[in-house]
């Protein structure tokens, strides 16, 4: 897995709440058997109309906004468990998603792909939106080691929470498979002691 340590970049604001994974990547694009190519279909039905014309009102199409940080409304990534949503965001070029709340499965999927779901307070989220709306070239600084996110122009910053195990994985580029496979003996011992669970 790709490492994540820190980042300073501009951000794309998407001030919409409850963005579900069906919007991030519609189901009709889930027919692939590999992880390639999902980036071009990210937010497909919000980016383009049925004829394929880009919607200028949608911020991913707005040249004012660019960068590897996506700032979104509350409860981002709800709905379907499709990891394709995390793959699409990553392939499009995002490295950090900022929101005041993430749906559980999406959060896990992002962390498993080196994409940082960064949860801030509703107040700080508002400040970020205001800063970007005022100046689209505003840069955000994200430091995973210090668990800090900063609006660079004003210096306003907030600490964020992350599971220490997951933090370690991201900083070092480790993933769960390596770890779980290394615990094989303990797992087998558990199976021997708990036969009733796998009998059927």
């Amino acid at each position, binding site marked *: 897995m790709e490492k994540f340590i820190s980042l300073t970049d501009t951000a794309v604001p998407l001030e919409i709440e409850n963005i*579900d994974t069906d919007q991030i990547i519609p189901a009709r694009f889930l027919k692939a058997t590999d992880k390639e190519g999902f980036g071009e279909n990210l937010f497909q039905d919000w980016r383009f109309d049925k004829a394929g014309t880009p919607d200028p009102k949608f911020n991913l199409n707005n040249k004012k906004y660019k960068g590897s940080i996506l700032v979104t*409304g509350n409860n981002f990534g709800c709905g379907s468990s499709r990891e394709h949503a995390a793959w699409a965001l990553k392939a499009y070029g995002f490295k950090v998603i900022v929101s005041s709340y993430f749906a559980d499965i999406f959060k896990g999927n992002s962390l498993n792909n080196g994409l940082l779901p960064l949860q801030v307070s509703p107040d700080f989220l508002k400040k970020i939106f205001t800063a970007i709306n005022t100046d689209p070239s505003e840069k955000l600084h994200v430091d995973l080691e210090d668990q800090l996110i900063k609006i660079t122009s004003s210096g306003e910053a907030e600490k964020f929470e992350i599971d220490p195990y997951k933090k370690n994985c991201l900083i070092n580029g480790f993933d769960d498979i390596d770890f779980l496979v290394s615990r094989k003996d303990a797992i087998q011992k558990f199976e021997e002691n708990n036969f009733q669970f796998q009998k059927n």
Partner: protein
Amino acid sequence: MKKTLFDKIWDAHVVESIPAGPDILYIDKHLIHEVTSPQAFNELKERGISILRPKQIVATADHNTPTINQHLPIKDLLSRNQLKQLTKNCEDNNITLYGLGHPYNGIVHVMTPELGITQPGMTLVCGDSHTSTHGAFGTIAFGIGTSQVAQVFASQCLLVDKPKKLRVNVNGKLQQGVLPKDVILYIISKLGTNSGTGYFCEYAGNVFEDMSMEGRMTVCNMSIEMGARGGLIAPDEVTFDYLEGKEFAPKGEDFEMMKVYWKTLKTEEGAEFDQEYSFDASDIEPMITYGTNPGMGIKLSDSIPMNTGKSDEKALEYMGFKEGEFLIDKPINYIFIGSCTNSRIEDFRTAANYIKGKQKAANVNALIVPGSRQVAEQIKAEGLQLIFEEAGFSLRQPGCSACLAMNDDKIPAGEYCVSTSNRNFEGRQGQGSRTLLASPLTAAATAIAGKITNFTQNLN
């Protein structure tokens, strides 16, 4: 400390707890389907790791299968390739696959319970958020991403933080015409779509105790729509009666032995929850959604609430509705009875009972999609097929179908569909489609009337 039902199952499956980190949770059953598994198989192959416990995996094809002419090669090349890949992956790894055409084929959350694969006290996962369905058996069941599918392949375990505990109590007497779907839509409308995030939800109270297993599955199925990773209901005689004699359920003495254990799976008196809500059953009426998330639901007889924020405005604009508007008498051209929420035999019995002797309205396309081959056979055996066909409904072959429109079963742009599925997200049932979630009874009544109707006065 007193334990909840959830604690008992979780604690019994913890292999190790990582200090200041997640638990290594042992997984008893792993269900897979064509859409979220191929990249996990690739992952293992690339790393040269073999699947640790193939016998604990069950596979089905459901998400992008066609619902007509299933005996013919699938026209859509990508879908065909994905199903071919699933077959090959299962063959290569000795995994049992109930593929298209197999008598046990069906939607993963319909066919595994009906085969007795889902049992109380288990941990069960699938790369599908509606895995919460299986919680109806008193099972810790939750949806996972593809990276986690690969983790379970490799280790039969997952690294997960123990969720917080939530209990939702519903007590009292349900009104006539109120189905389990209405109960869960009501709960989500009250609590919102992210109230359950970070939690596992136990449903308690006489309303759930009095429900059939199929009703309980409908309720648990939609736990994820309020953000909860899973929902569960304590197993009882209803659960044991349902399981007894099922193909893969334990038999004879084994069954009796397991029953002794299953009976211990209850929340102890005085056990604490991090959050608890209680509702009065008599306040619940047939429900319908008007927006673009499952929390945007109202009683069929109510008007759309005055909206509060930007996202609500966006939802109403998409749906073509206005605040304060009533949905009764809205013309509807599509209804869909199906999906892992409502495609079990009781759903079709309820619909058929209402439809019997009536005709669908001329403007309506009415799609009936059973959840499994076994349900489809039962529809025939009970004579429901005839009722549907005489009323002008289109009865299809099993699959996820128009719930997520990965196959050809799509609702056209701009059209409304009263649907028994679980999500009313923008474009969920096809690009530009507008979904109104409701019970099978509400969907059936809509099809007959050609518009949204307050059908409760027609019930006898």
